[in-house]
């Protein structure tokens, strides 16, 4: 029964290969594949723009964390020497590096504390938005059918509002506070990730390794956790980085409109709003927070682009 096959059909025996599986050479060959960390360093060395943007993000984070140590003055205090004799703001100089605002407060200190607000709102709002987006998109894509249809129509409805207008309307209902600003931005932004995640899950669940896990008898929750989520991580990281930039911009816009982070807390958007009144006499009031905002958003966008290339959600980890 188990005799080696012979006869005209086969035309000889199946050759018994001498190659043992997993020879030393084969095992050694695979060790050379560079890890993610090494690839990241290599690409940063080759791409100065990426290097600068990643450094900028890191520095910004450090500034936000260590704001009390770095700020030369109290950002909330009106200094008597912060206003000139005729009550106008003082320009950049030795006592106030970036000048003062019309209340006699130090602009640099407010800028540094403003970075805290921007980053906090950006990170928390985006984190929340990502969590909602991954959950909604993941369930819609994996469950399919009526669940998918209902969830995606809800997503479409939210998506159809211009995000800033949507946030303004929501703030009008909830009232301005730092917490509400974060919630509102998260509520406006989760739709983007939900759509992306749904698409990824739709194709992932047809992959043979997911089908194989199902036929093995693995439950749906374990499949989502062990086989789907790890493949979503690159896309989540990439879109979250871009989302932070968007969130910071929305927060600045809301604060500019006077419905963002409430006074007297420092926020870049609200500084820009105040600064434009004094553009003729005290241009530093507008330029300082404006430049900070532009550089921050630019740094997050460029760092996000670099991450996209590095983690390329299409092929990451699946390179054959």
């Amino acid at each position: 029964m188990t005799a080696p096959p012979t006869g005209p059909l086969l035309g000889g025996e199946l050759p018994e290969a001498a190659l043992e599986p997993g020879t030393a050479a084969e095992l050694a060959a695979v060790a050379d594949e560079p890890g993610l960390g090494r690839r990241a360093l290599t690409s940063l060395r080759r791409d100065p723009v990426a290097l600068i943007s990643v450094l900028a993000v890191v520095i910004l984070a450090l500034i936000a964390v260590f704001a009390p140590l770095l700020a030369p003055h109290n950002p909330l205090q009106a200094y008597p020497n912060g206003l000139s004799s005729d009550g106008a703001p003082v320009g950049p100089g030795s006592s106030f590096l970036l000048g003062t605002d019309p209340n006699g407060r130090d602009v640099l200190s407010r800028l540094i504390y403003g970075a805290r607000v921007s980053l906090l709102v950006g990170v928390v709002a985006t984190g929340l938005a990502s969590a909602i987006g991954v959950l909604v998109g993941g369930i819609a894509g994996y469950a399919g059918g009526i669940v998918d249809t209902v969830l995606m129509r809800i997503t479409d409805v939210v998506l159809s509002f211009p995000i800033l207008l949507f946030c303004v309307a929501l703030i009008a209902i909830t009232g301005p506070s730092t917490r509400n600003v974060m919630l509102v931005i998260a509520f406006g932004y989760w739709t983007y990730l939900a759509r992306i995640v749904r698409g990824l899950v739709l194709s992932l669940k047809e992959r043979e390794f997911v089908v194989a896990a199902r036929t093995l008898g693995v439950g749906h929750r374990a499949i989502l956790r062990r086989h789907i989520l790890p493949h979503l991580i690159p896309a989540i990281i990439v879109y979250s980085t871009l989302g932070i930039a968007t969130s910071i911009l929305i927060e600045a816009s809301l604060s500019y409109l006077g419905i963002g982070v409430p006074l007297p807390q420092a926020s870049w958007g609200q500084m820009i709003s105040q600064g434009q009144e004094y553009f003729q006499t005290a241009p530093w009031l507008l330029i300082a927070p404006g430049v900070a905002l532009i550089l921050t958003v630019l740094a997050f966008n460029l760092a996000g682009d670099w991450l996209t290339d590095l983690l390329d959600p299409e092929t990451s980890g699946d390179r054959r």
Partner: protein
Amino acid sequence: MTDPVHAHSVAPSVAAAPAAPAPAAPPAVDVRDLAVHFKVHRGLVSAQTVKAVDGVSFSIAAGETLGLAGESGSGKSTVARTLVRINRPTAGSVLLAGAETARLSGQQLRAYRRRMQMVYQDPYDSLDPKMTIKDAIGEGLIVRGVPRAGRKAEVEELLARVNLPVALAGRYPGQLSGGQRQRVSIARALAVSPEVIVCDEAVAALDVSIRAQVLNLLKDIQADAGVSYLFISHDLSTLRFMADRIAIMYVGRLVEYGTSEEVFSQPAHPYTQALMAAVPDIVNLGGPRPAPLPGEPPNPASPPSGCAFHPRCPLAVELCRTVAPPLVRKASGQLAACHVVPDAPEVTP
């Protein structure tokens, strides 16, 4: 000679009754009149039914191998995917050790899945690229309820069983060769101690040298564990090496079904004969080659009338165009679905 009325009086389920000689224990797998139909939507309103599998019956005894062959589009992969319940059967029954499983769902279906495993064709996509080898195999152990403490030892045991070095346990599939990955797939299937393993073109993607290793490994496992195989391949030499019984499929139906000996020594159906003639023969290289089978396999969405093979069949008679032949016992011993090939003489029980 061939009487269509008589032929039709034989119900398909009777005609295709399992030919297993030992009636004491039920066969490991007993498939009866399995049908899998797909609705294909064309545009917004019109839908068409494709009968990928239409009334297929076979059985596999414990510890035996059934080889299933056919051209692409014959429905052999659909049979495999339906047995492991990737697809849902439209009709018919699938008995596993005598118990009906075709209508299971929910928790019962999950419990059933353990008992019937599959080794896939593509060794690249059937393992999660982001999961180490030990986790991939360990997943089966989790399903089987092996406690965390015992998993490492069992993973190493399973790796040894498929002749892989334990050093590979921490590797990712991307770092392994095709043959190694297929061994991991086999180890993963074995981790849940299945009764039946479906091998859907499991060696088709491998180099010929590696192929022999994997086939021998599958045979060793069968000898050790007594698992049954449904071995699907378009390669008849592989089937001859592996299978105790052979089933030949054409456009969703079995056209021939018998022991490996019967089918290979005296193929009854003209389609089987054509498949065998198409196998390259190293011994008689340069000898006269039989004429290749004309035409293409038909589209399963619109199969020909009567016997689906008649447009390509060298023996076709008028009857073949209108009446589908039943699968009945032929003079050479096996079952075949053909009007022209002589039936076995009637035996009164």
